[in-house]
């Protein structure tokens, strides 16, 4: 697994665990994102089995902006995280904090953020 993909996967699981409750909607959204990232069904099963049985030891936010040099890749990663965030229909403060920090570090404009939010919301519908 490439370092960038590994980092994104770690961030996705951190997002799922941000509020310490893993909902079925989050698992479904996560499964769909992992498949889109190119993981096979078996790999997804193993990843979910390994990373959802207990909260991650390391909760320090993954520096998405560092592992993805390209702006487009950063935005794609952020959109994936927002898809998890919006999957339950309600946004948890811890999840918002995670997203906000990332948006600040990436220096996204309000317009760009709104575009990503729309795409992420559509992905969860």
């Amino acid at each position, binding site marked *: 697994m490439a370092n960038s993909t590994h980092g994104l996967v770690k961030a996705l699981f951190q997002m799922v665990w941000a509020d310490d*409750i893993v909902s079925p909607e989050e698992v479904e959204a996560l499964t769909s994102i992992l498949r889109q990232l190119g993981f096979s069904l078996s790999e997804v*099963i193993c990843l979910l*089995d390994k990373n959802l049985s207990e909260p991650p030891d390391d909760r320090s936010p993954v520096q998405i902006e560092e592992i993805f040099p390209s702006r487009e890749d950063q935005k794609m990663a952020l959109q994936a995280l927002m898809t998890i965030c919006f999957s339950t229909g309600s946004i948890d403060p811890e999840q918002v904090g995670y997203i906000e920090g990332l948006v600040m570090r990436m220096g996204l404009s309000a317009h760009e953020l709104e575009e990503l939010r729309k795409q992420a919301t559509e992905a969860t519908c």
Partner: protein
Amino acid sequence: MLSRFLKKKPQLIDRDGDRYDVSLRVLSRELPGYRGVTLDLSRSGVQLETNGLLEIGSEPELKFEFDRGELEAFTCKARVVWSKQEGNNERKFRSGLTFIPVTDDEKRQLARMSTVLQTRSETDLKTLLDQARRIDPELERSYRNIQTNQPFYPAPGDSPIHPPSVEGAPPPPPAVSAAPETPAVQQDGPPPHLGVYIPLNVILEGYTWSRASCTLHIGLREGDQVHNLFFPDCQLFQVLEPTVDKTIAGLYTTKTSPTTRKLNLAGDREHKHYRFVAEGGDGLIDIVSSPCRSTPQG
């Protein structure tokens, strides 16, 4: 009066030589749907299953496609001797045909086919298994429950495994929760580790067991693709319900369950209880093993 008893059952098809139950695809422009499947095959004729009635006396040209490299596909004319509907099924028809080879090459092909089929029928399962082991000594196919070093079958009083329910969510299918909620598995003893429910929509393709590495391999079919899961250091494998053609709706995994506790697994290796479930949450397959992997080696 005795003639009634002496009367032979009418022979539906006059074929010499042994018949071999073999399922091969047959293509022909003259067959309904342009195809059929052999039910049995001999040097002199074939019983075909098609999705339409064949005209008795017609002589379709049949192209046989073989599933192994010993024989090449070949074409031969055959005459329809009988044809009938199979029971009440309007899509299945059986017909008996006799080959009418014309060229020497066609006769040679039929003779060769007969020899290959005879050889195949004489190769018993044990020989095939021995051959398979020589190719891959690690692999032994099994279609029975695995005998483990510590055989364990849940006692009748054992609670079925269900993950804790999520507040506000309907009970089945099981959901995942990391919150410390009321344990649903067992009231006494240490609180169970909470589990993970992974929704799936797959069909069990098959499983194999490697005795040498104690690894169970499960093939899951998703559309045209088969995905492999490996359960190393497998201590329990139990088929709870017939799984053939049944859709597996999800996989529930937990670190601790009554089953893992009763197995009393010692050692450094972590073990988990996996349960493949059908729609509605009914258990299909139970596995206790080290964490599953997507490749044979970790």
